[in-house]
């Protein structure tokens, strides 16, 4: 793999850009691998990358039904933060956030990480108390957050109306090191780095069955034939339940649609990420100038990658009160992704009833920000067969044991 650098740009400028290589190879599958990762989204590719980087396992295939990064990795609102209340969540999301800081250098691929700061607005007195508690918890967890008053919020985001009649802004939780990154670039960067280590990324190859005998997986049936493997990692987000069923076990997961939308591009008007959880809306501005807006999930089981109009309407209605300036903006595009929600709204990084099969799912509405940390923890689980400190609390057995990581109550909303 040729490195990207300022010298590479200069060299290619001299020869009409004829020397750029393909970022990753598209090989035909080998008969078998040491590890197969199902799902070439951010989490799957990051799992493969850290298997190679941290554990030297490079005989790996990442199998993808569609194209890489074409699921939720390409459908989220690109927010990165780690201001969680519960210790296990704060640990893994903070690991992810800190890996994002140097990810561009690590991958030699610009993921455009922009630590522009992230505000979570408190618009009820209950939220004020909740976020103050989170700030104290974060202090103990080593996550840098602070509580700021409404005047400071107004200084940071001049376009915000802090005196809204229904939802006045009473303050905010600020994570200065939170921000955004370019979501596609995260998948592309990991894919390029995996390919450079000799891993196979096999797109347009759907897994149709998992072959297992005596509690041990021997390989997967795919649309490109049978591929053998010593270990299997299932990292497929919305379709986790379907792949788990092929492997013969059932998950505490339900799939629902989560929608997002972008406005027409406008001049720079907001340079932090703002989340308003009482009204279920969040907004940031992309480098192109579009306002990137997300809301809550739709509420019923759904695999269609599109959601109900009234959810968008609710999100925008609330955001217009907080940001009156956006009331006449046209919305350009709207889309949905299928998110896998667990009972306690926390992810699963876990062993399964099959000895050499591992699963990473349940990231629900908050997967993008976790990609590097999730891949890091999953790679350790796959390589060693036992979870490391980051993944230990996220086992599936927590539902039987009643050991929830209850971010659904802690966050009160999709997170």
């Amino acid at each position, binding site marked *: 793999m040729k490195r990207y650098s300022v010298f590479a740009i200069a060299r290619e400028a001299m020869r009409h850009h004829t020397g750029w290589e393909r970022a990753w190879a598209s090989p035909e599958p080998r008969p078998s691998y040491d590890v197969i990762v199902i799902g070439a989204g951010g989490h799957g590719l990051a799992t493969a990358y850290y298997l190679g980087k941290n554990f030297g396992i490079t005989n790996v295939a990442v199998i993808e039904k569609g194209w890489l990064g074409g699921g939720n990795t390409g459908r989220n609102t690109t927010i990165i933060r780690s201001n969680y209340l519960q210790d296990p969540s704060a640990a893994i999301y903070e690991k992810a956030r800190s890996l994002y800081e140097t990810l561009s250098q690590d991958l030699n691929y610009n993921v455009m990480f922009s630590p522009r700061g992230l505000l979570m607005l408190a618009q009820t007195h209950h939220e004020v108390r909740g976020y103050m508690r989170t700030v104290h918890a974060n202090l103990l967890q080593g996550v840098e957050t602070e509580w700021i008053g409404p005047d400071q919020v107004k200084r940071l985001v001049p376009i915000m109306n802090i005196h809204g009649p229904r939802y006045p802004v009473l303050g905010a939780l600020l994570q200065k090191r939170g921000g955004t990154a370019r979501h596609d670039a995260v998948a592309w960067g990991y894919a390029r780095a995996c390919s450079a280590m000799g891993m196979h990324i096999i797109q347009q190859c759907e897994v149709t069955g998992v072959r297992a005998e005596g509690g041990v997986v021997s390989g997967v049936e795919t649309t490109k034939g049978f591929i053998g493997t010593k270990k299997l990692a299932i990292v497929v987000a919305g379709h986790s339940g379907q792949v788990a069923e092929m492997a013969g076990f059932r998950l505490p997961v*339900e799939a629902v649609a989560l929608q997002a939308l972008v406005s027409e591009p406008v001049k720079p008007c907001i340079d932090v990420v703002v989340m308003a959880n009482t009204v279920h809306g969040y907004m940031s501005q992309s480098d192109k100038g579009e306002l990137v807006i997300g809301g809550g999930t739709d*509420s019923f089981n759904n695999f269609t990658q599109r959601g109900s109009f009234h959810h968008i309407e609710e999100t925008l209605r609330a955001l217009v009160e907080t940001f009156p300036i956006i009331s006449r903006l046209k919305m350009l595009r709207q889309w949905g992704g299928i998110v896998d929600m667990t009972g306690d709204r926390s992810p699963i990084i876990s062993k399964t009833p099959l000895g050499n099969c591992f699963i990473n799912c349940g990231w629900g509405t908050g997967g993008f920000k976790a990609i590097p940390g999730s891949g890091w923890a999953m790679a350790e689980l796959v390589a060693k067969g036992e979870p490391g400190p980051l993944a230990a609390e996220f086992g599936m057995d927590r539902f039987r044991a009643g050991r929830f990581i209850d971010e659904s109550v802690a966050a009160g909303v999709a997170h």
Partner: protein
Amino acid sequence: MLILECPCCGVKAEETELSPGHEAHLKRFGPGSSDEEFESYMFARKNPKGVHFERWRHSYGCGKWFLAARCTATLEVFGTYPAQTSEPPPDIVARIKARRPEWEGCK
């Protein structure tokens, strides 16, 4: 927009009038059951990509619970029926089989 006919009051209700109540026909387990049974009742879900039986409440209408058969892959509705049933009624099953010949039945 999802539209379900409430079998209690007969109103063709659109989604904003309704509240979803997730998977229907769960077998309940309580005190005295094994940990596996209780976990499975509390958390494990069929979550099918296809025919799904689920509970709904006509919350901004008559307020009653009812059950619906719906396809999660296409959002097609096969029918609604009263909540006081332990399995899908034959007419609903027949309609699903007519529309989805490959359907393996209510597992």
